């Protein structure tokens, strides 16, 4: 899928070769080179990721102030319809990107995790704003950063981030999807339990162990 930039110096020559090819009197190495430049060769995976990257369906997941800025993403000034991401789906079954826009309280954390689990593969997560990325302004008993209980692919800073910043986050995610989908927060799903905890984990009484052992079993 790589785009090969050609230098315009031999523009005239390429025009003549194209005319010969049309007339059918181009053979041998020239014909070989001519065809090779024209045909896009790609792998099935790359083609799929190209399609996935350009048609991301975000799930409407507005928690707090960032949700208002997420709505402006869809409105006129900054329009992510240009990148195919404006179809905000209501249910997690039909969406493949969760933009966690707002602060996640300890009462909401299990629900965010359950909805992320109910989304179908392939799925990604953007932590929009400082509160979901890192507890933001409120470092207190009631807030849980998204990284504590689910794998997040792109963190968009800001409180609330400008709509252009979230659009840049979505474009960065599209680039990640097309280049190397496996790349992501510690190989995507094996992420739980690998948060960097300095010293013994028991030192953080507020670490929310959202999923008890009985909730998960290997596929």
């Amino acid at each position, binding site marked *: 899928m790589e785009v090969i930039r050609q230098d315009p110096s031999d523009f005239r020559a390429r025009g003549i070769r194209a005319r010969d090819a049309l007339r059918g009197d181009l053979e041998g190495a020239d014909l070989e080179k001519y065809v090779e430049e024209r045909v896009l060769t790609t792998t099935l995976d790359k083609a799929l990721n190209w399609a996935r990257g350009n048609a991301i369906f975000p799930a409407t997941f507005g928690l707090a102030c960032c949700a208002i800025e997420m709505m402006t993403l869809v*409105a006129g000034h900054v329009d992510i319809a240009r990148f195919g991401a404006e179809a905000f789906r209501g249910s997690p079954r039909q969406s493949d990107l969760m933009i966690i826009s707002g602060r996640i309280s300890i009462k909401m954390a299990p*629900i965010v995790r359950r909805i992320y689990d109910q989304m179908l593969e392939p799925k990604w997560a953007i932590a929009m704003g400082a509160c979901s990325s890192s507890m933001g302004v*409120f470092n207190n008993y009631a807030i849980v950063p998204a990284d504590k209980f689910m794998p997040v692919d792109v963190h968009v800073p800001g409180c*609330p981030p400008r709509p252009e910043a979230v659009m840049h986050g979505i474009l960065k995610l599209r680039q990640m999807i097309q280049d190397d989908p496996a790349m992501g927060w510690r190989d995507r799903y094996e992420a739980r339990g690998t948060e960097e905890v300095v010293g013994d984990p028991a030192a953080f009484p507020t670490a929310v162990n959202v999923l008890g052992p009985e909730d998960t079993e290997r596929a």
Partner: protein
Amino acid sequence: MSSVSEYRQSEQAVDVAEAGGIVAQTLTEWGGDEELLTINLGPHHPATHGVLRLLTTLEGEVIRDIKPIIGYVHTGIEKTAEQKSYWKVIPVIERMDYLAYYFNAMAYCGAVETLLELEVPKRAQYLRVIHLELCRIMSHMVWLGTSALDVGAMSLLFYCFRERDNILDLFEMSSGQRMHTRYIQVGGVMEDIPKGFEEKCRAFCKRMPKAADDFNALLTRNEIFLNRMRNVTPLDEKTLLELGVTGPLLRAAGNPWDLRKAQPYSSYDDFDFKIPVGTKGDNWDRYAVRWAEIYESVKIIEQALDGLPEGPHIADDRKVVLPPRHELATSMEALIHHFKLVTEGFRVPPGEVYYPIEGPRGEYGCFVRSDGSSKPARVHMRDPSFVNLQALAPMVRDSYLADLIATLAMLDPILGGIDR
């Protein structure tokens, strides 16, 4: 008889007790042939305007009982505010009701200024009024856009958010940030408005009424919108007053209570504007009251711009207000004041104050208790959505599920303010 499990039984204790016509209804009374379904219009729902969980008991399409369960975006803001010095509390307080951030800051600063007995200069009061009314229009724009979306008129979202972006450009011009601008400071406003602000603001005031006419033309003669709004879930004024409802919901029922007129603050009595009041208190009146308020706010902004007095944009009591930057280079006292304010913050005489103002959703009352130190001992924001949400149950009992969605849109709850 009903398929309500033990988990749901524990959730459904009797709700509001028998008082003034609100009959306490328990589930077992409805015999009915149909099975009762208890379902969550839960925290993650496109029509709940935030993370509000409505435990609704449905008999077919008719709602028999509804129980709002909140707390899903509880951020412990009031506890965080007790850990910060007075002037650092403003960014935290502004993130409570995230569509009326100027009003949160205004209520808090009003309370602290009352405690300090600090007099705000006239120009600062006018600038505050301009930004408060712009914020009210912006809040009504988001309400109108999302409510029309809930009822099905999708195009309105794009028009309303276009107007909202114009307002946010003005906010960005005067304070540098689109939302949570921290423009209102204890003692006045952060900075004076830049050169081009007045022209852009007047241009906006000229364009806004025409835009509001278009929005109304889109909706008032629309058969679907009329059927969804007219005579739908009315609630009389007596019940609303008992439930402590204020703001457009109360004015829609006919009670013209508006703190800008009743208890004028920040020189609101210099402007003449009218208070739109409804008659029946149904969904249509709630829409019409908020829609008419947009014109009144534009009128206030224009009068405030015309009568903008000269003078300082912030009080000059150096014990409370940071000295201007250029003075730091020259005078030593300014440097000492600056250092003292930035490190420890200003001390407030001990006492308790409740300072109510009129926001887009009702009465925002900020209660501040100070114990003489540089950190507030208790900050509580009486949020109108928190109290107005109690009126949802009497409104939508025995009405259709579709009317619940329209009523919730007209109630305009902001969950950040409810859960604080």
